[in-house]
């Protein structure tokens, strides 16, 4: 186990809190606006806690965290009885409440998450890792797809997201 100080729980919390955005982003990508979001957040935290003794520091902590967080989120999807998200961004965009305090940046982020929500679970993982600046090689290692496949998928994902966002503005 990779430890930076003696206290196991304290070490874990220190690592997690330096990378807590990863869990939030995975939850936002897969369960944006869903009542299950909080439960998935806790499930990811629990799975990280259970897997922590096996973390040897061979890869970056954030890479290890993404691997567990994405696997947990995708596993959670199977418990849902509805089919994957297929709604059009335009409809969702027009349903977004325009709260007085909400600024442009927040609306754009929500639009972006809603656009990503129309992708398949695997494509969501790929785009998230790409946006987080992971190389094709690292994305391939985390997802289990080939580098060529990642590159082909990314071209299609980029085109789809650009089109979705262009239509919504």
């Amino acid at each position, binding site marked *: 186990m990779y430890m930076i100080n003696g206290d196991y729980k304290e070490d874990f*919390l220190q690592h997690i809190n330096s990378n807590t955005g990863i869990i939030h982003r995975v939850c936002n990508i897969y369960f944006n606006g869903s009542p299950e979001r909080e439960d998935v957040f806790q499930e990811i935290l629990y*799975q990280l806690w259970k897997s922590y003794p096996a973390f040897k520091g061979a890869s970056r902590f954030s890479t290890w965290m993404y691997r567990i967080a994405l696997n947990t989120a995708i596993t959670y999807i199977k418990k849902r009885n509805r089919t994957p998200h297929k709604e059009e961004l335009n409809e969702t965009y027009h349903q977004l409440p325009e709260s007085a305090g909400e600024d442009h940046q927040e609306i754009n982020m929500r639009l972006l998450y809603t656009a990503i929500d129309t992708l398949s679970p695997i494509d969501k993982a790929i785009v998230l890792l790409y*946006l987080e600046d992971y190389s094709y090689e690292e994305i391939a290692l985390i997802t289990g*797809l*080939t580098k060529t496949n990642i590159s082909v998928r990314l071209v299609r994902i980029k085109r789809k997201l*650009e089109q979705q966002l262009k239509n919504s*503005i």
Partner: protein
Amino acid sequence: MESFENIKKYWEKNAGEEVGFIPVSRQSLEEVIRKKISKEQKIVIEYFWASFVFQVATYAFLSHLFIKYWGNNFIMFWSVAGIILYVPFTFMLLHKIKSMKMMTSVKLNSPLPDIVNNVKNQHRVLFSFFRFKRNFELFLIPASCFIFILLVFKLYVPGGAEANLAGCIVSYIILVSIFCLAVYAENKKRFKGPLRQLELILEDVEKNNG
């Protein structure tokens, strides 16, 4: 945000700021661990009640009949037949439940699976359990209902099954239908729905690999 490179720049600038991330405290971590352990145990207990206890009750009922009607060859034979019918399935069911449970626990010395392999493994284990359960039910439901109806008519209806063939058949059909409805609802919730979600992911992987 028209071009994807603009989206990426926008993400790098804003993704870390969109939610005021609250650090995980020691207390909230302990609360999550406690809650999740209790949830895991609840799932195991649910499986236990749903499958194992039903079988134990069946063993108890048939053993009771076997002892109470000692000397009555008909009842003794069918009680033993019922017990023999259930024994291999009880062992296999417990073995399969154990492997299902192990799927959710972390193996300390094995490397973390990638997403595609993780989905494949989950589908394999869940499908294998579902196939076993479906075959088990296809054989066991009609057979155990037959034995149950035969024993109930012998014990509580004058003349037994031979003298009340029509009633016996109607009761059998009703009992099998009740079992089938319960099993259908359970399979849909616990197996067919989750398997379909995993298959959709695997179909997406296969389709885009070609």
